Every structure is written in structure tokens, then in C-alpha cells.
């Protein structure tokens, strides 16, 4: 599938294609869906009834770190691969297509935000991520506001230390992350700081979520003391605003990946399962919605690549494109999820069938950082001004 000589638009060239194809091959081998099911859904009561943490494959994560994926978004100057968004979204689609339980997405998103900090202050942390440290954003308040600056964490200065208290909610893959990228109020300023997850005074309270392919927590900060050097920006709102298109695009890419899995899996089922002497796909009440699922995914994917390209070009339209991508991907994900369960019939409603794993991951991602309607509300302010 080498595309040398073929047109390369969206900044998707040979390197990007290689990365995507490598990710696909690696995950096809390492995480076929049977393995995913055995990993996260062996026992229906474990997570949902007994409240145990969702399981993930740390060995696989080590391999991913060795492949250098944590450092993909880290600039080359800080020891990372400095990959373009065009390449990263292709890889993340594969991650979504395999519903990989890992702190990869949260690490990428934390990286995007750190990149917008003061270069000198952020470099060391970015280097650690490039070296394989996982990270996550701890920036959301208890109300679940996605607006930059809405935080329940406050800071005070004590000599050359910063003391944090309060709570960060809805922290993605909190249990897997080694570094928390946190916002905290200090007077009029909004700090962006890095808190190692083993810092004294952190209290992790696991959320009981439906998605089995990640964890989420709220984190209490009880007088958590960090060196001033851990403050990477005193204008976190701006840093978040600049990074946000990349964050949205990452989640949108994961959604496109799960949606494509749902489409292909349901299509396969519709080819083989027979009723009334015909494969299900013969019936247009099955066929046409599957086509509409495809149309929705393709719309989202095309806007996704456009948004990634705008980010890489430093284009002013990046935020608009990214919000459009998140909106389209959330809506496509909702419809793909809906049809994937319905068109499997009774088996689709069971624990035994794989579709619920993707349904839940998709639903989580549809809501994360704002669903379609939310994105459109913000888009309206820009487009209808």
C-alpha cells in the first residue's frame, strides 16, 4: 500500500502512513478482540458489582513505550518524535479500533497541554514522557465543566514550593498515569503544574464507570506540596485553549476507530447470519442504516484529517475544524453504537458479544470534552457571530 507518487494531502505522507500501518499490524497481533474480551470482560461482576479496577495489559504497555508512542507528540527538541497531528490521528484511530486499554490517549492529551507551557519549564517533563512516563490531565471540576479555568483546585505559594488543595474530577486513566497535569487557581492566575502521581497528599477515588477499557477517578489534593519548578505555566487558560484542538482531535480519532470496528463487525454479522432464508444484509432495514453508519464515519474522518492538518499548519481554523470533528465523530459514534447493538439482535444485548465493549468506550468518548451538541453550541458562537 505504499503511496509514493500518489497525492499526499492533509499532510499525510509516507511517515504517517507507515506509523498508521505499523500501529494496525501491532494491535491486530497483540490485541485481537478475543484477547481484549479476556482481558477486560472475563467476569461481569468484577468491575460492575465488586467495584474492582478495570484490568489492562501492562506488558503490552511496556511494548508500546518501547515503540516510542508516548513520545510521539513530544517535540524533537525535548527528545520526542515530534510527529505531526496528521500521523497521530491515524495511529489513534487504530487504538480506538482495537479499544486498547492504556494511558496512551491521556498521555498524548497531557503532552499537548504541556507543549503549550513555558518551554524551559515544560522541557524536562516532556522529556520524561518521551522516555516513557505516562501522564493525564487533571483539570476538570466536580460539575464536569469542560471550560478551561473551571477548577476546584487552588494553590498557595510557600517559599519555593506550591501547595495544592481541592479536587480534580473526571481524570482519565488516573490510575495508570505517572504524571498529573493539573490546573490550580492562585489569586487571579491559573497555574498549570505537574504533580507526580505518588506525591504525598493525593487521594485517588476511583469512579465506577461503564467503560471497561479505561479508568477514571477524582483526585483529592490534600496540601500537596510541589516545587515551583513543577509549574509550567502561569497562564493555563491560554495553554489549554491552544492545546484544545489537538485534545479534541485525539478523542475524535479514537471515536472514528471504534465506529469503524462497529461498522465492520456488524457488516460481517449481517453477511453471515440468516433469517427468512436471506443474510440479514439483504434486508434494506439492515443494509441502509449500515450505509448511513458508513456515511457518518466518513464525514467525521474527513473532517478529522482536515482538523489535524489545520493544527499542523498552525491554521486559525484549527479550533473550528477540531470542534466540528468532535461533533461529527460523537454523532457518528452514537449511531454506529446504536446500530451495532440493535442489528445483532438478542446476542448484541449480551455480555458474551463483543459489541458492548466498543459501545461503552464510544459512549464515554462521545461525552468526554463535550458531545456533539456541546461542540455545536460553541461553534455557533464562532460561526454565527
Amino acid at each position, binding site marked *: *500500500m505504499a*503511496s509514493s507518487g*500518489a*497525492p*499526499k*494531502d*492533509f499532510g*499525510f505522507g509516507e511517515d504517517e*502512513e507507515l506509523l498508521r500501518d505499523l500501529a494496525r499490524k501491532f494491535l491486530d497481533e497483540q490485541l485481537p478482540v478475543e484477547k481484549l474480551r479476556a482481558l477486560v470482560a472475563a467476569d461481569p461482576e468484577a468491575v460492575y458489582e465488586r467495584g474492582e479496577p478495570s484490568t489492562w495489559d501492562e506488558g503490552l504497555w511496556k511494548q508500546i513505550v518501547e515503540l516510542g508512542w508516548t513520545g510521539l507528540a513530544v517535540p524533537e527538541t525535548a527528545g520526542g518524535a515530534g510527529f505531526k497531528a496528521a500521523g497521530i490521528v491515524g495511529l489513534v484511530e487504530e487504538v480506538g479500533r482495537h479499544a486498547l486499554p492504556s494511558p496512551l490517549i491521556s498521555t498524548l492529551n497531557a503532552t499537548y497541554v504541556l507543549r503549550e507551557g513555558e518551554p524551559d519549564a515544560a522541557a524536562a517533563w516532556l522529556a520524561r514522557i518521551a522516555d516513557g512516563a505516562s501522564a493525564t490531565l487533571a483539570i476538570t471540576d466536580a460539575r464536569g465543566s469542560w471550560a478551561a479555568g473551571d477548577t476546584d483546585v487552588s494553590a498557595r505559594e510557600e517559599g519555593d514550593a506550591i501547595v495544592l488543595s481541592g479536587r480534580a474530577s473526571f481524570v482519565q486513566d488516573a490510575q495508570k498515569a505517572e504524571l498529573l497535569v493539573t490546573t490550580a487557581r492562585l489569586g487571579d492566575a491559573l497555574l498549570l503544574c505537574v504533580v507526580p502521581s505518588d506525591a504525598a497528599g493525593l487521594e485517588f477515588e476511583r469512579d465506577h464507570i461503564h467503560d471497561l477499557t479505561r479508568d477514571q477517578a477524582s483526585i483529592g489534593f490534600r496540601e500537596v506540596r510541589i516545587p515551583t519548578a513543577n509549574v509550567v505555566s502561569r497562564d493555563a487558560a491560554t495553554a489549554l485553549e491552544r492545546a484544545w484542538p489537538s485534545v479534541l482531535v485525539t478523542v475524535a480519532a479514537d471515536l472514528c476507530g471504534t465506529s469503524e470496528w462497529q*461498522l465492520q463487525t456488524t*457488516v460481517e454479522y*449481517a*453477511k453471515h447470519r440468516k433469517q427468512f432464508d*436471506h*443474510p440479514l*444484509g*439483504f*434486508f*434494506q432495514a*439492515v*443494509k*441502509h442504516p*449500515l*450505509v*448511513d453508519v*458508513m*456515511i457518518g464515519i*466518513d*464525514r*467525521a*474522518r*474527513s*473532517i478529522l*484529517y*482536515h482538523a489535524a492538518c489545520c493544527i499542523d499548519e498552525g491554521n486559525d481554523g484549527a479550533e473550528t*475544524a477540531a470542534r*466540528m470533528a468532535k*461533533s*461529527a465523530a460523537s454523532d457518528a459514534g452514537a449511531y454506529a453504537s446504536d446500530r451495532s447493538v440493535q442489528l445483532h439482535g438478542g446476542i448484541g444485548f449480551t455480555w458474551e458479544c463483543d459489541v458492548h465493549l466498543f459501545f461503552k468506550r464510544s459512549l464515554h468518548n462521545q461525552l468526554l470534552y463535550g458531545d456533539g*451538541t456541546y461542540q*455545536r*453550541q460553541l*461553534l*455557533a458562537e464562532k*460561526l*454565527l457571530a
Partner: protein
Amino acid sequence: MTTTQRDYLVDWQRKCFDAGLVGADIPSEYGGGGHQGFQRIANQEMGRAGTPFMINIVGLNMAVPTILVHGTEEQKKKFIRPALRGDEIWCQGFSEPGAGSDMANQQTMAVPQGDGWVVNGHKVWTSLGHFAQWMILLARTSRDHKYDGLTYFLSPIEGHPGVTVRPLVKMTGESGFNEVLFEDAVIADALRLDDVGKGWTVAMTTLTYERGAAESAGGTSGERVPPIRQLIDLARKSFRNGVPAIEDPATRDAIVQRAIVAEGIRQNGRRARVPALCDHPMRLPLQSKVTGSEFSQDNAKLGVEIAGAHGTLYKLDRNAPDEGHWPLAYMNSYGHTIAAGTNEIQRNILGERVLGLAKSK
């Protein structure tokens, strides 16, 4: 369309042809520009400039590409240049009262006689038939085979003995398409396109171009200029519960949804040219007819809704927003969701050819 409008559009197409904006990809020996890939650029630029459409849409999008694939050297020399220049207008005679979606169910008969064919039959929904000199005609030459009994002709229309064109009125009240009757009309064998019995294959070539799945000969559609701007302007001057519709959250959401679909169509077009980002070569091209026509339909419908009470007003009413454009566009949009293979048929094709699902009846 009035004859004045027709004359204007014919003149416009001629100017575009002379400027090299039409037939840019067509080999120069047949009168084209001879530059592969130029047409897309010309279309984009014309789309951006909001130029009038090409009147010879059937000639450019269907007849010319089909003749290029299936025609004899003589046919190519005879037909292509006048079609590109708008000197000869074409129409399409595929549909019949009994052969719509089931296009192979053709009943129009062509019977050999001397070095020609005698044609009898009834074609319907023939766009531009009243202006056309020529028709791409699908007819039955054998009753023994449904598909292999079809043959494709290039039939003279205007002033041709035995051919009658009767106008049909659209739901909008405008004239639009026609029915065409063939009563012992004689067509020379030299006007047969490709072999006897190969009509279905030839017609499939035509449909590929008609449905926009392949680049055709001329700037007929250009790049779709998204009418989001128009919707925003309408929402500014319309009211909902006494406040400007532009402030109504539901209206805002609906307009932004349209903007996202517009972006999707634009970016799909861009992605279709990057093979590494397309899983199946026909996955995006085959979607464009469905997404394009439903985009226009949903926009127009939203416009009517935003207009509210004023959405009831039609062309002649002096209070009608945008001269009654919205209800008119809404009704006309069904032309596009029905013509060129209904969107239901398109969804069958996508489900079967791209997703590999079992063929529906």
C-alpha cells in the same frame, strides 16, 4: 427555463469552452483541452466564482464521457466538440413509465431495418428534451434477455420524424422535463454506440459519470458553495417566538449541523484523492450523490423552517423571504434525491458494492 434563458446559457457555455474551462481533460483531437486533471481545477474555480451552470449537462456529464469510452473514431469526431461547445444539446432517454429504478426493464423497442433501426417507445422524465438535438437512448433489441437484450443509441431528437417531445410540469409549477415518444422513428446504424446487446454495460458507464463518481467533461456542478451563509442571513431576518431566529438555540444548532455536513462533503472530496486514507476505492465516490443531494434538501428544509410563517409564502408574494427561494429549493431538491438513481438505490449500491452485503431484490 425560457428560450431566452436557454440562449443565454448556450452562449455562456460557448464562452467557457472558448476560454478552455469546459472539456479541459478531453483529448485535443476531439476538440478538448487535452490536459488531464485540469477540469477539476476549472470546476473549482467556476464553483468559487458562482458561475451559471452548463446547459449541456447531459452532453458534458454523460454523452461525452460515454462516447469517449465506447464510441467509434467517427462518433468521437462527430459528437464531442459540438457537445463541449454547447452547439448541440443532449438529453438522456433511459427512464420509462415501467422502467425507473429497475432500469433494465426497458420496453422501447428498436427493430433492425435496412442499415438502421425502427424505434417505438415512450421515454419519461427527460430533462432538457425540449431543447435537445440528441438523446442518449437505451432501447430493447431483444426480448430474450433482460440485460443483454439492450442496445445504446445516439438518437436525433429535434425535428426528427417520428419523435415527439411533450413537456411535463414539475411539482413546483415550473416546466422542467418532458416525455418523448418514438413512433416508427428511424435511427441509422452508424448511431449505435458499441455492440448490439451491450447497452447495459454502456449505460453503466454513463451512470458512473452521472452520479459524480468519476470526473466528467465539464463544469456543471463545480465545487458546492455551501449555502450556510444564506441560512445565517435568513435566520437574522426571521423571528421565532418574537426573537431573531439566529438567537434561538435549536436554530443555531441546526445551522451548525449543516455547516458540519458542508465541511464533511468538502473534506470527503479532498480525501477521495488520497488513496492511503481511503479503505475502499469506491467508498467515498459512491457516497457523493447521496450526501450532496441530501445536503441540499436538508438545507432547503431548514430554510423553510427558519422562515416560519413566512415559509408559507411562494414566488409571487412580495413578503416571501429571498423571493420564495426556500420552498422552491425544498421542492426542487427532490429532483436530486430521485434522479440519477434514487437515494434508496444508491444505498443499495453502497451496501452491496462497498460493504459487500447481500444483493437486495
